[in-house]
């Protein structure tokens, strides 16, 4: 595939969420991710598709996995990268978040990968920057590349259309849940959200999902479970009585796997709290696709960066 000459999928300048994407666009991103899996021989070989493109990783929230993954993905396909991390807000730093981004953009950046604790922060950047903006997780809103890598991981095993996927855990505070709901539904899967009532907003049914509060009840009917991390850092006060009670009701154990539908796919976006969302037995067992997710994350991020780079080059040619 010649990246510069590839036809557009109409992504636009930014990738801010899954909600705005069509099924065709999602499929095209996943296809390109597969292309990169092959072209880089599983991520071991380096390409120069993004030569001359500068990618800035702006992480305003602590993150190791996603930041490393984006960094590696960008470099593997030939981009130059610059990292900026800060956990302070505009208020604590005295410089607004937008000013920080404008300063970094002024150094000649083409694409900005943004992780921020505030929903809508990438939208704010997209409004102010000329660079393309890629949302690497904005608060409790969206985390598009995570949902894309989850979908890629499922698609490598099963056709997504017609599947029943359960998102388990802290739905209220999960950007992964929101992005997955949008993406999976667009690709024809049905979604059940399962967790304590305190962590599932009642209005979530208006997103077209089923709500369940018993993991044991839904396990026999779902094809895939995605075990969301309990977001202790986003919760104000207690949403459930104890971690033990959470693990007892919603933790994925070997016992529960036995009662599940055959061939159950187990995903977890991580970082996982072993013994809470799932036991080590499940995390390291045959149903677990956790490490596939991590590897797929690289290819999905390569795909997103290269598609946005295409848009950027196209825009440059036009002007």
């Amino acid at each position, binding site marked *: 595939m010649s990246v510069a000459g590839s036809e557009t999928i109409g992504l636009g300048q930014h990738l801010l969420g899954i*909600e705005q994407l069509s099924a065709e666009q999602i499929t095209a991103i996943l296809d390109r991710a597969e292309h990169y899996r092959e072209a880089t021989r599983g991520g071991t070989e380096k390409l120069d598709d993004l030569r001359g493109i500068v990618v800035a990783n702006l992480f305003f929230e602590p993150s190791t996995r996603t930041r490393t993954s984006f960094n590696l993905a960008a470099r593997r396909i030939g981009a130059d990268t610059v990292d900026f991390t800060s956990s302070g*807000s*505009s*208020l604590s730093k005295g410089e*607004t*978040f*937008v000013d920080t981004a404008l300063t970094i953009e002024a150094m000649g950046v083409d694409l900005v990968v943004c992780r*921020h*604790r*505030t*929903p*809508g*922060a990438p*939208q*704010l950047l997209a409004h102010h920057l000329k660079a393309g903006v890629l949302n690497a997780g*904005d*608060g*409790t*809103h*969206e985390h598009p590349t995570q949902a894309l890598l989850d979908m890629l991981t499922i698609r490598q095993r099963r056709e997504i259309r017609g599947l029943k996927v359960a998102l388990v855990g802290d739905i209220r505070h999960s*950007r992964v849940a*929101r992005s997955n709901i949008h993406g999976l539904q667009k690709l024809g899967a049905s979604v059940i959200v399962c967790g304590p009532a305190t962590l599932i*907003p009642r*209005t*979530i049914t*208006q*997103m077209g999902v089923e709500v369940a509060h018993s993991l044991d009840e839904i396990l026999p009917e779902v094809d895939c479970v995605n075990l969301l991390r309990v977001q202790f850092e986003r919760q*104000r006060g207690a949403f459930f009585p104890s971690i033990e009670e959470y693990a007892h009701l919603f933790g994925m154990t070997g016992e529960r796997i036995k009662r599940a539908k055959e061939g159950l796919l187990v995903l977890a976006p991580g970082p996982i709290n072993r013994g809470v969302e799932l036991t080590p037995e499940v995390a390291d067992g045959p149903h677990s696709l956790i490490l596939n997710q991590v590897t797929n994350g690289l290819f999905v991020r390569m795909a997103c960066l290269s598609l946005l780079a295409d848009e950027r080059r196209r825009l440059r040619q036009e002007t």
Partner: protein
Amino acid sequence: MHRRLIANGTVIDPANDIDQTGSLLIEGGQVSGFIPGDVPADIEAEVIDATGLLVAPGFVDTHVCVGEPGFEEDETIASAALAAAAGGITSIATMPSTNPVVDNRGAAEFVKHQAAQVAGCRVYPMGAVTRGIDGKELAEIGQLAEFGAVAFTDAKSPIANAEIMRRALEYTGMFNCPILHNAIVPELSETGVMHEGFQSTRLGLRGIPAAAQDIMTGRDIALAELTGGRVHIMCVTTTASVEQIRIARQRNIRVSGDVTPHHLLLDDTVMDSFDTLCKVLPPLRSPDHIQSLIEGLKDGTITSISSDHQPLAIEKKQIELDIAPYGICGLETLLSSCVRALIEPGHLSWLELIRLLTTGPAELLGIEGGTLSRGRDADVVLIDPKREITIDACQFQSRSRNTPFDRETFRGAVVKTVVAGNVVYDRDAA
């Protein structure tokens, strides 16, 4: 004596039940009479032609942050007065949430002193209910009342402690002053960004449930009944709050409420943009709640409209949504946004709208103004109901530009504002 005639307009004066073509005669800065029909040929006066215009009492606004002292980067009393004049508002009641807080006689005197220097509109200070508006101890309410405070409020800080609110209602009753309350349960609203509902779920933004206002409205009504005090719910936004106020008023409990144009015109779907300019407290609600507010206005449950003017320097709004302060700069868009929200859809007549902007708030504050009765100060607004204007925040008289209506075109505009017989704002001269 200097005479002015505002001639050939449609004079709307709810206090005197006037809604008819005619002229308003002003002598020595006071209204000296309404002359129905054509202008008498023999009259000697300086004429302001109001043909095709509505002539109404200047508006009274019970909810204005002036920034001064302490937040002069947002607004000063002088700039707020000019902004009010441009909005057709001739009397404003100022929030005590300044720095220092208007919780003592000296602070009230400062506001009065600054207000005496400014042109454009009458400025009435409101005093804090609690010292430092922190909800813990009563402020020096008696002295504040003596030195000109017309009402008491802790501005946007809810008075969470029911015992404090009870005492405050008992105490302010001695001075016959109302308490204006941002009725919202802090524990259900703290760090909230928008209305809690489907949109907040979708966007992952922390919601403030309608129940946060419903509960506090109910508590305040119960305390007003207990104490005989007068409580006013600022910025009513929810169905159940309207319903509770309606029932309480039928039972002659001394409670009232106001709404703002932005809570009528914008619903929670605007948060799609993650725009900090739409972050207000209480939050913009969903369409079903807005429908209830309109019903409340129509049946007289809601007795006034306020601008909820919260000027904020632009850099304060250009930050992350969750830490951005709440507020909309509302004085200069008050009328135009009311027209779009209430007149254009046919919810209210002009007479009804003007009542909500004049006699309703004036009665709440217990101030003169809001009428064109003979002998009253001639505070008048001239409105062109057909004129189209495009909001340009850069041209605001206010020091701040935090409006979600920038660049929007509205139909219906203030063209002239008159205070004590003098033109303080003229759109075509500006």
